[in-house]
């Protein structure tokens, strides 16, 4: 399912995550947002706001319950972005 839009989302998300979490570990699709990046509730809100603004989407809160890794978050954004149109 890799197409250019998917890669673009992945790239943006990895960039945002590394500046948001100020971490030196390399962020990959398998990076766990909770255990490896310690995304707390405030950082999560910031991230959602940036993602929503960047892609002009609305992320439903119920969908986040199934998100633990960077890849899962990218999948979710991609799905919302491609079905919204």
């Amino acid at each position: 399912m890799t197409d250019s839009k998917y890669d673009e989302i992945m790239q943006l998300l990895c960039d945002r995550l590394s500046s948001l979490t100020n971490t030196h570990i390399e962020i990959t699709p398998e990076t766990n947002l909770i255990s490896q990046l310690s995304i707390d509730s405030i950082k999560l809100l910031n991230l959602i706001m940036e993602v929503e603004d960047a892609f002009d989407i609305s992320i439903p809160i119920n969908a986040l319950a199934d998100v633990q890794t960077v890849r899962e978050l990218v999948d979710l954004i991609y799905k919302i972005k491609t079905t919204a149109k």
Partner: protein
Amino acid sequence: MSSTIIELNAPQTQAFDFQPSSELQIKPTPTLNTLVQQLAGFDSLTSALEYAAKGVTGYNFYDARGNLRSVLPYSVLRENARDLARRFMNFDLPRGSRVAIIADTSPEFVELFFACRYAGLVPFAMPIPVNLGSRKIYVQQLKGMLESSEASIALSNLDYIEFLNEASKETISLKWSGTPGDLKQLPVRDVDLEYNHADETAYLQFTSGSTRSPRGVVITERALMCNLQGIVRNGLEITPQDRSASWLPFYHDMGLVGLVLAPMVTQISVDYLATRDFAIRPLQWLRLISRNRCTVAFSQPFGLKLCSMRVRESDLKELDLSCWRAAGIGAEMIRPETLRAFAEKFATAGFSESAFLPCYGLAESTLAVTFSRIGEGCKSIQIDSKTLIDKKMAVRLQADGRKQSEFVNCGQPLPGHTVKIISDDGQQLPELMVGSVLVQGDSVMLGYFNNPEETNKALKSGNWLDTGDIGFLFNGDLYVTGRRTDVIIVNGRNIRAQDIEELAEQQPEVRSREASAFGVTDEEGSTTIVLVIECRLTSVVERQTLITRLQQLVYMAFGVNCIVELVPPHTLPRTSSGKLSRFAAKQGYIQRMGLGEQLSLAESGDR
């Protein structure tokens, strides 16, 4: 006279100008009503709604972009609730049967809540999932509430129905679950809706997300009517010009009782923003207040902090908050710095410090216990820190070089209610002595549903409710200095220490009674959860794996980060009966970390 006034007061369809693309021309309910205002004093929720339905005011729901999505005047709410009540009659349930509703900020939730009361059923609100990766734990939470309440019916809108269906499996008491749409498929039974009595249970309020032992507070119509009357007449002095705005979740007591039920029993209009939308863009709440000229809006201190942190200077010039006369603050320890920072930031937007209205309450006393005096702002006093810790006494000593702690005046109890402070051995203490805060009065709960053990712990003889908070009285005003160590408050969420310890003890590496959880608060007032585990693992890798897993579990269950410390067996202090002492565990941790000096003294009333 009033057509110009109505014009001027007419709330805006959009909370801000951008995007008028929606063709729907819906208008929010007006601020000024056509009906003579009655300030509570009804004998039940449904009789209050019967009255409010004669006017033109009601509830308004806005989306994340500030557009008005739906309008629910009290008149329509009454119609819809009565219609749904007659559909509930198809289940032939005994009066008082429990109905679980996942409470997102929507008109459907409010309609179902009132439908239950018209049908003589007892509704309760269940939370929505808010944390990353929380599915499993969220479903367990729902299941815990369904079982503890012995719910007969459970409802959720489409967004959450999957979680509800998963939780409903094997819940024996449950006769039916579905969406509001499913309920509307059922026929309308042609029956008379019975009158509700004051002694009937109005609703249950769950106070903890615990998976093993959720506690449902039982609130009668009498307690609810009593508390609402105190809130609107004495606490807020509501007038016909008032209008509310709220982002507080409907599954919290402050959101439900304070900002759904209290406006209805005074027939004023409310503008709602979903909690998630507020949390992501707090500016939207302030825009609603500004554009719709709202006068009453409550928040936890954490919500104010979010506004101070996330609203940009450039956004301030479009705001006019001078209409906001009652900025109620409650639901967690209030730190004067948080209020000062907010007032400073929003002064240029017309916010007046005198609007701050600190109050104190808890779900076990319906909602409110004390209110400070309206229009006077936040008052606080400076107390000598050392005397507070050593002698549990609040002394206003002003001497150079001595550390001071500042505490907020939460005001006096509502009429008909009494607050007293007792010592560890149960003796009533005089003013300025620090001890447990107890409340007595008609707003106090009947108990926890089906849970005599927890009920007996909370309700002392003479029906005195032990609030679990620590504080003192001065000139009859309540000052809260901290919580006992069984509840940790992080970013506005109440987390029971026991729930965190239970999570840890479910791990194969952790034995029961070898985990202790508590909160450590730094000078800025932010609290971190610390989990100390007695651990026999020697491999560095295994130890790190356990730490990571525990942090992840705590995050998924409670949405907060925590520090996990592994210590050798027999490190954690125990009481004579072998129970772990969280207070002593915390002291030990503070010593090991050399944190003594840095810690805030706000919790010095701990025991």
